[in-house]
């Protein structure tokens, strides 16, 4: 598989009134295209910070981050925004849908910022994305009329619509009951099988077990990095029954 991203000696510190708080203490990580990887760790471990840096929402303090073979250091805000618009996308724990907008409007949203998709084609892309999460019959519903699981599936459709290289899912099941959470994980699993690279950030082992590879983070360092393909399959089969 081709390399998607590569981190070398990544550090991240926050400065608050000259007091330095180090969050990541030197992360080395390589992720290839098509992987389904879970980043696990207790709260405060730095897993969210890592995801924000990987997703170009934040910058490392030191260390290198190569994305699609390109060093991302020195890119300005607009260039990072362009990467977020076209190459990566996010599914958040809190869904972050516009409440008084329809499902279709929510899914169309990222295309406003995507330079490569013509306005005339937007609706096709959006309908395709909505269909792939099984919500075509809800396209005209307001997002406030949907259940939590449906909301998260809309958020997944929104993440898919730009056909990104990489999808981040930040505690995607955190606000859902277990049945809805399972549905959402199945959608993500299907997307991975269709070739999408997915990085899942979670502290729940059952959710993480959908991934092929689990990276444990503790106190800003990678504690373990294990491929779990067989175990995940077994685990998933059990759950699906």
């Amino acid at each position, binding site marked *: 598989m081709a390399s998607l991203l590569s981190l070398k000696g990544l550090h991240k510190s926050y400065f608050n009134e000259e007091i330095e708080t180090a969050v990541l203490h030197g992360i080395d990580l390589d992720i290839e295209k098509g992987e389904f990887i879970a980043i696990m760790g207790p709260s405060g471990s730095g897993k969210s910070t890592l995801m*924000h840096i990987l*997703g170009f*929402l*934040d910058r490392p303090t030191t260390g290198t981050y190569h994305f699609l073979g390109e060093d991302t250091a020195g890119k300005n*805000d*607009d260039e990072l*925004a*362009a*990467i*977020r*618009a*076209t190459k990566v*996308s*996010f599914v*958040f724990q*809190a869904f*972050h849908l*516009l409440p*008084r*907008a329809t499902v279709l*409007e929510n899914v169309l*949203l*990222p295309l*406003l*910022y*995507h330079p490569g998709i013509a*306005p005339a084609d937007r609706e096709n892309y959006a309908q395709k994305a909505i269909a792939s999460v099984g919500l075509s019959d809800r396209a005209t519903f307001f997002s406030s009329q949907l259940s939590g699981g449906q909301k998260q599936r809309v958020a997944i459709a*929104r993440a898919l619509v*730009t056909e990104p290289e990489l999808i981040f899912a930040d505690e995607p099941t955190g606000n859902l009951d277990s049945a809805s959470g399972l549905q959402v994980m199945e959608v993500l699993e299907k997307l991975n099988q269709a070739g999408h690279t997915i990085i899942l950030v979670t502290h729940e082992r059952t959710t993480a077990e959908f991934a092929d590879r689990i990276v444990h983070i503790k106190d800003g360092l990678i504690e373990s990095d294990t491929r779990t393909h067989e175990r995940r399959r077994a685990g998933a089969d059990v759950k699906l029954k």
Partner: protein
Amino acid sequence: MHFSDLLSTASKSLQRNIAKSTLTMLGIVIGVGSVVLMSSVGASMEKVILSQISSLGSRSMVIFPGSEQEGGASQVFAGHDSLTFDDIERLEQLTTIESVAPIVFMSGPVKRGREESSAQILGAHPNFFSNQNMEAAEGRLLDIYDNDRAARFAVLGPDVKEELFGESDPLGKEITVGDSSFTVVGVAQALGSQFFQNADDRVYVPLSVARQATGQKYANYITMLATASFDVAFADVQGLLRDRHKIENPEDDPEKDDFIVHSSEQANAILSSVSLGLTMFITTVAAISLLVGGIGIMNIMLVTVTERTREIGLRKAIGARPRDILLQFLAESVALTLLGGIIGLVFGLVFAYLIAIIAQSFLSTYVFAVSVPSMVASVVMAALTGIVFGISPARKASLLDPVESLRYE
């Protein structure tokens, strides 16, 4: 982000918060509405005044006795006797003056039986009627023969006719003016008001009769018609009267003269200075109301940015650049003020129209008029208000950190 996306995003955001958007716009609506209303009423009044001036004709001049006071406001000292009939004879000889019509006021009640009118009584030279472009509504006006033989004939203004005769025919009937009896020979056409005096509440008698009755050796005022250019005639009249009255006034100081020459052209000049004053007044009101409206917009936009912090975070996460966020919020505030401006424009016009309908029942010459420059300027200013007061909230939104914004509760 395409421009059309910007517009549709802004309009959707405003629609999603329709109640708040409406309330936010209210300041601008009222501001622009009042400006449009006031400028329309101002334009209507200007037309009313212009119609009074132009009814006199552009060659017409009026000379009053007295001297003009400082500050451009003219003041006539009543009873001043500077315009003698010897002056008038000399004025008639000027080649630049076509006709001269002196007026002598008579006093005393105007009566018909028990009906009484407080009309003004003008002893008018027959030229007066032609100078004023007046015609008779009934019967005839006074002519030179009436004047020569000092006939006890009277022409009534339409209001006097109404007062004394109601609907009945006044022609050939007798009325009493002061102590004498007069025969009504005609009714003048309606003039409305001239220089803000009711020109219809008048009784005209021959000048010779008024001179006999009062024994006056001077005219209360004189109307004249210039042959061609007002400017040349004005200089001639001024030179003649200064010469005769022994006034040294090479610097043209109106306070030194003992007469005042008015013309419709001068009245036009006064009108334009009045309308300049009105424009400045409206501009001040517009500036204040747009300032207040703009502060309201800024206030609401700042609240909106805070309320929508998570939306801003999301938009940034899905690829919006700081510039996109800035333009989005700026577009929203401009859309609010522009829409408010347009709604205000419509309301202002509707109210101005209603006022015109009501005003017409009091002032028949009132017409509905609009000031297009004021309308355009107030809407454009409203839109600019949106930019000026929207820029700071929009900038605040554009600079939000995406990670912090997404976590905002």
